[in-house]
């Protein structure tokens, strides 16, 4: 029964075997390796992983904004509503960026052009994708400002006159101004104070509901994921190790890495003397281990793990995991 429900949902994004490498002098940084992901319309997917796992590169890959020297998309498919983005021309991609897919970045302090007013920056994206006059674009931009909780009379102010949280709201306004189908949010609240974080996340959720935007939220914070996401993908060394609904991941954790992530969060209700980090560090992306990339740090390691790279196995209609423990 539930298989049918899941498959009836409309897939807005399908990533199949995406591989992105950075070629620097003599070494090759394997940032994203055979990554596969799906996203249904209206859902929020949390892309979770440690720093260096390749999350930002994946998002840039979807936007085709991977800086070309030194980065290259080696292979794979990225299907947006069935069309492969990797086959589109640069001109076609420009129509998609900001319009069908928007991206917001981590540091609001540097994401805005310091010498243009915030209002103009919002109006700019509107005028790129819609053929309306300057006056009309200004009106729409002011509406966006109000929508994100900024008084519209601040239209002509410059980014340096705003705090971090408010700047991020402007960034969100810009990203949603053309009502994109997909929003990629790369750690949008990491650089903000905890109290502001909650406000910004609330805002994003509210707008997401209102416009039925699908979202990929990149984060390393499992708490944020629990608050905002429908589905979760755990990323490590350029691959997805586990994927499922919130319930799957949080209540039926399968992969040893995911268990390790949960285990390392200090429990508010228990007295512990020491933290439980996962031993070891992420592997060197220029020199990935053969076999399972997590094996060197895994407590459940078996000898086959170091030779044979497991593949993503479907455990339930929503839950997938890449680990030899679950190869039936």
């Amino acid at each position, binding site marked *: 029964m539930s298989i049918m429900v899941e498959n009836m949902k409309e897939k807005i994004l399908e990533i199949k075997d995406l591989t992105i490498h950075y070629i620097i002098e003599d070494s090759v940084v394997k940032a994203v390796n055979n990554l596969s992901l799906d996203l249904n319309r209206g859902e929020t997917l949390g892309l979770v992983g440690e720093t260096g796992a390749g999350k930002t590169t994946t998002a840039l890959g979807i*936007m085709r*904004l991977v800086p070309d020297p030194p980065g290259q998309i080696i292979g794979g498919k990225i299907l947006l509503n069935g069309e492969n983005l990797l086959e589109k021309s640069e001109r076609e991609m*420009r*129509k*998609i*960026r*900001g*319009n069908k897919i*928007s*991206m917001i*970045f981590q*540091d609001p302090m*540097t*994401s*805005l*052009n*310091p*010498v*243009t007013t915030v209002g103009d920056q919002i109006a*700019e*994206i509107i005028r*790129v*994708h819609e053929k309306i006059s300057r006056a009309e674009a200004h009106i729409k931009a002011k509406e966006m400002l109000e929508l994100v909780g900024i008084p519209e009379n601040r239209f002509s*102010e*410059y980014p*340096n*006159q705003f705090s971090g949280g408010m700047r991020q709201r402007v*960034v969100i306004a*810009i990203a949603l101004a053309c009502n994109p189908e997909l929003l990629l949010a790369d750690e949008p609240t990491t650089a903000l104070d905890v109290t502001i974080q909650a406000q910004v996340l609330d805002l994003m959720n509210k707008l997401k509901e209102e416009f039925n935007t699908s979202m990929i939220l990149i984060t390393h914070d499992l708490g944020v994921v629990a608050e905002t996401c429908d589905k979760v993908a755990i990323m490590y060394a350029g691959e997805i190790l586990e994927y499922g609904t919130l319930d799957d991941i949080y209540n039926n954790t399968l992969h040893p890495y995911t268990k390790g992530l949960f285990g390392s969060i200090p429990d508010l209700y228990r007295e512990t003397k020491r933290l439980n980090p996962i031993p070891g560090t992420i592997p060197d992306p220029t020199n990935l281990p053969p076999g399972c990339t997590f094996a060197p740090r895994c407590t459940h390691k078996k000898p086959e793990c170091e030779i044979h790279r497991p593949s993503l196995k479907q455990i339930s209609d929503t839950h997938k995991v890449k680990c030899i423990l679950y190869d039936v």
Partner: protein
Amino acid sequence: MMIPVLLGVLFIVFLIIEITPGDPAAIMLGEGARQEDIENLREKLGLNEPFLIRFVNYVKGVVTRFDLGISYNTKRAVSTEILQRFPKTALLALLSSIISAVLGITLGIISAIRQYTIFDNLATALALFGVSIPNFWQGLMSIIIFSIWLGWLPASGSYGPEYWVLPALTLGTSTTAIIMRMTRSSMLEVIRQDYIRTARAKGLSERVVIVKHALKNALIPIVTVIGIQFGGLLEGSVLVETVFAIPGLGKYMIDAIRQRDFPVVQGGVLFLAFAFSFVNLIVDIIYSYIDPRIKSQYKRDKKEKSDSNKNKKEVAYE
């Protein structure tokens, strides 16, 4: 904040006047003048007063009457002579600035976009030559090649627009090189910023990203450089005018050196130094207007100052 600096400049020029050999009174009256006439003139000019009094008089003279002394040669006021000739110098400097700015910025942008290509390497090498070449030699060689051998442009004088081509290009060479290098490094730095990535993520074409977003930010420090270089152009025009026989302030000063007409040299140096400081001041003001970050900081400081003044007043009554 500029006043003590200008005062200091006056002091240095005054010191230079003091160490210059020769008795001004004797020189003005010429050879064969009688000793008592010389003495009388010295009294009249206040040349026998102690150092500090003479300095104060000097400053007073400059500031209130714009008195820069009397030319030994023409016996007219140096300030009059300077003001008569300065417009040509200013025009030359202005022409050179405009040419350098346009050329330098364009080449700098192309270099930055095509970093490490042949164009970039060539442009950088040429820029280095541009700052190394002595401008008076460049002028002489330009005359040889374009005037004498090719006959395209005139060699001296300032009788029409074509007379300004070689001088302006010669004077502007090193400035072009400096502006080009500055533009290149400023653009390279700006292109790496996060907001450029945001601009691309909006779906803007690369050209709009470069011109509307990158250039607008990169130009801010470049404008400062252009302004500062203008002062250097005033300095360089001294030589270029001499080589191309343009009757501006520079040529006048150099001729005065040959004729040992010291008041003209000292007055000219003082005048140009003041002009230089004035241009720098204008550049500072323009800079604070075009950079919104500084503009709003300025407004915020003014508001804080008036707030704290209000507080001060309240406390004083306790």
